[in-house]
């Protein structure tokens, strides 16, 4: 295949992400990965629920005393909005509008970076309070669950940036359209996991 084959909005396929065999394979394989990731996070959630507020008797840290909702609310809104901006990016991808897609992906990356910055601030704050990874069973379970999600955010951001930079001069073609599509799917999945994190860890944590 000619990687540099040019398309116009009128010759661009309706579903460029699955128009080639490679695209189809990636699409199926990636959803299989997401299904497996669901199970990974389920085990981390189950561990967290089992160890919540547990640890050495001297540990004075509990979910109800530690978590603060305003920060979590801001992080939730930012990540949810970044999910929408990546929907906009894919809308423009399907319309073969490369510049608009890159712009929306750029906004998505900025929102993701803000989210990551707030999460780092939050973790740093906890560590300064004396709530570190090894403080208690609760702290280990919390940092592992939320930290694994944060690592996914970092990976998703790196993925977006790598795709944007690598393809900046190529424009959209049959080779990179599936890549952009899957990165956006990954980003939505990160938001799906966060919905359960803010509900199960933070909201249910504050209730006690």
């Amino acid at each position, binding site marked *: 295949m000619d990687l540099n084959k040019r398309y116009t909005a009128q*010759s661009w396929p309706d579903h460029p992400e699955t128009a*080639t065999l490679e695209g189809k394979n990636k699409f199926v394989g990636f959803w299989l990965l997401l299904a497996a*990731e669901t199970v990974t*996070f*389920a085990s981390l959630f189950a561990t967290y629920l089992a160890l919540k507020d547990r640890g050495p008797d001297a540990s004075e840290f509990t979910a109800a005393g530690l978590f603060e909702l305003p920060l979590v609310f801001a992080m939730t*809104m930012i990540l*949810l909005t970044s999910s929408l901006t990546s929907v906009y990016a894919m809308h423009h991808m399907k319309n073969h509008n490369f510049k608009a897609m890159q712009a929306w992906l750029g906004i998505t990356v900025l929102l993701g970076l803000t989210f990551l910055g707030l999460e780092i601030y939050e973790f740093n704050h906890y560590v300064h309070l004396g709530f570190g990874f090894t403080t208690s069973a609760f702290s280990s379970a919390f940092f592992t669950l939320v930290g694994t999600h944060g690592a996914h955010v970092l990976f998703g951001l790196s993925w977006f940036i790598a795709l944007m930079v690598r393809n900046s001069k190529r424009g959209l073609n049959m080779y990179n359209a599936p890549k952009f599509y899957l990165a956006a*799917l990954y980003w939505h999945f990160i938001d*799906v996991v966060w919905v359960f994190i803010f509900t199960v860890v933070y909201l249910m944590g504050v209730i*006690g």
Partner: protein
Amino acid sequence: MAHDTPEKIRSHAEHEYLKKKRSTEMRHQLTSFAIMIFLTLIAFTMVAAGFSAYLIVPIILLLAAVQVVLQLYHFMHLSNKGHGTVAFFMFSGMFVAFITVLALVTIVWW
């Protein structure tokens, strides 16, 4: 080889029709987004208002489930044509996830 795809150039009318269809879809996505924001607001407000935990927990879990369904079906297009196999993967994953959480929580807290 694997990348070869027959090129089809759409007529102007067909092109305009597709573009219009896509902007309608985008409007639906915006509606889903508004609903998601609304559900999130309800969840946070309920907790901030300090209702009984027995009332809040089932409701916010339900709100989370609804929000995830919106993400999967609208933002991730799981309801679209050609998503049968991947939906099967995803639901299997969610089933195993549910059993995992249920089993561990039951063993520890029953």
